[in-house]
């Protein structure tokens, strides 16, 4: 169980073998390479050109900048190479009911006054005030997003322009390729090939060696399963059970297709609810990524395809690609000497762009809890910790996703009728009751999502709070209304001065001329 400390630096490094070269595989490789010494850890990644990766266009969360900064990535260069655009949030259309729309921004709503969170002041003005203020007018990122504007946040914490952060939309395939060159330049060994056999230790059951179709053998001390939905090592070989969440998140298929980019470059992802699921729209520099996530219980593939194609901004680039999945997670992401990262460990639909965040969190935890070089190997105590953190991440995101579905007024559509009436996790029931009663927002120190995210979606999905924190009443109503007006105007005045997102990209990180043939291939 313990790892003895030995300092015989001469011996061979600890061998980490990664199976699968999508976003998960290359983020794992790059992260580990950056943080751990080559003399202590060797890294081999096996990927096959014959096996596709899932991502088409990918929307991310602001956390990814921490990861890129850790690698020392030059932002403009990375954006050029991945055809990236900026993202200030997600616009949800028709989710509560057709015609409704709201933005879940990466940023704050208002500011606390008198030690009381903003939503209480806002709700009080709704109840008692003379003016009706829209919540979204108090989010810098929402107002900027609505104006298709973008600039970097200001670092001066007193400035209204410091109250938001940003993420990116990029081509996930190009991001993986970018990280691949980054990692290979730094000594990560890449093997092109497919795993056809796995050897295990006869007594411990640990993985010892992979055999590739080429006949090559790849031995390792720790295996990272980034094989995607197939979960080649953790699921198939280690046999870790699957926890199915379909009863909470009914969508199980996606059709994805890029289309020609038309119109202004929006600095947000759009998610539009449809009768049997929802359609994503992710603006990249050279094209727009689209996809229909749907439940096969409620619509046929053909109908879904027609729905998707009929709603595109521009001409489709190719035939939609079908993906099948189940929402849920492996009961343990790390078992024995096998750790699954990315889709091999679990799947949550991309409604809140959490896939890459989950990869990043797992890579960060793995680096901290990684077996020491020249040690007795995997330490069960640290494996338990990895699994505990991973489970917490998944469950918190899960509740937030379910909220989008269950709080709807799309009466008469079977998927949405089901979502309104399905039994919810107790943790979510409790959060909803607390918001309804007094506009209290879930808050925790670890994992997603922050208070303002819950506020955006709770209010956006039409959940009404009947009360608010009475400490808010300490502020005279007229003073409150003055502050609200001032705050709202300060945002508007600042946003009016901003550059458009399209112009900002053109100036900062415009990708090379993209040829027609390249677009056709993509």
């Amino acid at each position, binding site marked *: 169980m313990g790892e003895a400390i030995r300092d015989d630096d001469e011996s061979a490094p600890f061998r980490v073998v990664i199976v699968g070269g999508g976003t998960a595989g290359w983020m794992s490789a790059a992260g580990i390479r950056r943080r751990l010494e080559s003399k202590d850890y060797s890294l081999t990644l096996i990927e096959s050109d014959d096996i596709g990766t899932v991502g088409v266009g990918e929307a991310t969360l602001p956390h990814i900048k921490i990861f890129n900064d850790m690698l020392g990535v030059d932002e403009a260069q990375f954006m050029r190479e991945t055809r990236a655009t900026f993202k200030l949030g997600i616009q949800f259309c028709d989710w509560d009911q057709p015609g409704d729309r709201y933005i879940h921004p990466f940023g704050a709503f208002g500011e606390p006054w008198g030690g009381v969170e903003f939503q209480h002041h806002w709700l009080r003005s709704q*109840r008692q005030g003379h003016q009706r203020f829209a919540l979204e007018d108090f989010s810098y990122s929402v107002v900027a997003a609505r104006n298709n504007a973008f600039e970097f946040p200001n670092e001066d914490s007193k400035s209204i322009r410091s109250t938001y952060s940003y993420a990116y939309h990029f081509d996930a395939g190009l991001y993986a390729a970018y990280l691949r060159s980054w990692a290979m330049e730094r000594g990560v060994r890449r093997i092109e090939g497919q795993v056809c056999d796995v050897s295990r230790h006869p007594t411990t059951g640990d993985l010892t060696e992979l055999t590739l179709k080429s006949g090559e053998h790849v031995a390792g001390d720790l295996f990272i399963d980034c094989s995607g939905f197939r979960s080649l090592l953790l699921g198939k070989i280690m046999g870790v059970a699957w926890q199915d969440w379909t009863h909470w998140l009914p969508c199980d298929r996606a059709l994805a297709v890029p289309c020609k980019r038309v119109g202004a470059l929006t600095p947000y992802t759009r998610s539009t609810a449809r009768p049997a699921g929802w359609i994503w729209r992710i603006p990249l520099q050279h094209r727009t990524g689209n996809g229909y996530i749907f439940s096969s219980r409620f619509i046929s593939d053909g109908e879904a395809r027609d729905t998707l194609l009929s709603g595109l901004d521009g001409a489709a680039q190719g035939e939609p690609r079908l993906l099948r999945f189940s929402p849920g997670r492996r009961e343990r992401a790390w078992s024995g000497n096998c750790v699954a990262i990315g889709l091999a460990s679990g799947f949550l639909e991309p409604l809140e762009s959490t896939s890459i965040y989950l990869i990043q969190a797992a890579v960060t935890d793995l680096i901290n809890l990684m077996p020491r070089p020249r040690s007795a190997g995997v330490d069960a105590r640290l494996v338990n910790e990895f699994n505990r953190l991973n489970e917490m991440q998944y469950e918190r995101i899960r509740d937030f996703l379910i909220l989008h579905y269950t709080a709807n007024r799309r009466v008469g559509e079977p998927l949405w009728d089901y979502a309104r009436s399905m039994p919810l996790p107790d943790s979510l029931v409790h959060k909803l009751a*607390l918001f309804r009663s007094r506009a209290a927002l879930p808050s925790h120190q670890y994992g997603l999502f922050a208070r303002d995210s819950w506020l955006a979606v709770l209010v956006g999905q039409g959940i009404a709070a*009947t009360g608010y924190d009475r400490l808010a009443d300490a502020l005279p109503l007229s003073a409150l209304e003055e502050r609200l007006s001032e705050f709202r105007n300060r945002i508007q005045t600042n946003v009016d001065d901003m550059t458009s997102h399209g112009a900002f990209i053109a100036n900062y990180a415009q990708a090379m001329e993209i040829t027609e043939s390249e677009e056709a291939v993509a």
Partner: protein
Amino acid sequence: MSVGPPLSRVVVMGRDVDLWLCVNAIARALGPAGVQVTAIELPTRLRSSDISATLPPLEAFHAKLGLKEPSLIRATAGSFSFGQNFVPGSGRTPNFFHAWGAYGAPIDGSAFFPCWLKATRYGLKLSYQDFCLTAVAASNGRMLLPDEATSAFGRTDYGYHVQTMAYAGYLKSIAANLGVKMYQAQKGLVERDETGSIAALIIDGSLRIEGQLFVDATGPDAILIGRSLNVPFDDWRPYFSVDRVLSARAPAFTRTPPFAEIRIAGDGWTALHPNQAATGVLHAYCGELSRDEAALASASAAASAKLADVSFHAVNPYVRSRVWEGNCVAVGGSACVLDPIHDVDLHALQLGLVHLLSLFPVTGQFAAERAEYNRIMRSYYERIRDFQCAFYAVAPFGGDFWQRARGQSVPQSLSHKIATFRARGHIAPMEDETFLPDSWQAIFVGLGVAPETWPSAIDGIPPNRFREEFHRTIEFIKGKVLEQPTHDGYLDSIGRSPAA
């Protein structure tokens, strides 16, 4: 403002600090929103020898209540405390300081602790607390007044040692100015309505006081939530060996140390809480292993002084299964009794009040608030319990008491935490922690728990960077400490207590 009329009448029954801090908090925060507070005061249980040690967050809570630090210090013969100095006395374990400030500063973006850990494995002789500005200042009898440089370095927090009776009186006098209605009573009787909620309290058999929300601040007696509502409690005695304490007073130190000192002996431990006027002495032991006379001898030896006002008390740690039941909220000792080792009583009270304010009912419909309050308070209490259990579970001291302490139950959440610390020096992050990783590390390291490994990510930092940073930090601390006023000098400057 909402469905139904606002909840506006709160009755708090209790005694001493539990009662008066609670009354201040509610009246101050919610008075402007129209909430009226009635206080029913039961006879005090305090002795003039009692000195309370507090944790750093009380300072900010006082500020919210509009209490001014200098007047508090003067009124309570108070002093500042930058942490706890543990004195094992004999054996292999050197003294160690559990400070209310940051230990070390990150090196090239990596946390300090693993860097220190690795360096010690390669022969570094400096202890963990040598890198804690707060600990070094306090050990030298100094204050630590924060400035830009110390803030950049890290937290430098403090608590107080206040004369408990004076503190309760101080809070009461302020409550009187907040328009709180006050009654004194020998006992209270609960009148319940048809739903089982409390309708009114009948005090001393005659006066009937109605309310919508009742707060039980009666301490471990739990007169409302326990005796009247019969809400059961979970017994936490299986986790702890201390079941009895001796409380007494020793003379004041010539120079008031700005910290508490915990002196270890084979039969338990003795805490010295110095303030301007006296030194509070608390000796904790196990009644089955030591008789009271032996405890007195042990406490006198530990304090090296003749003790006055000696009294003995049982300690029965527990947590109320539901700290909010019906329309009755338990705060302080009626909700939870913790082990005396880390001076957490007042902090546990503060946590209960802070969350009661943030979940204070809007109307008579407060089932969601109650559920959340029960959930979150339970979580906070359990994390404190784990921290205290950790101390006893890993303490390496000799003697019957410590042997018994090491054999007590360990909650699963804690065994996981100890395991990850032993494996890698990793403090498993959990929600609702009172004690920061710095505290966990200070206690574990001080008690001689040596992590087997450190995170590999720090292996990329060259050894000379460690040396440079260690040297820079030690020099910084030395310089900053010399700039500080002495604790006594600072107490002089804000005005001494007439009692001192």
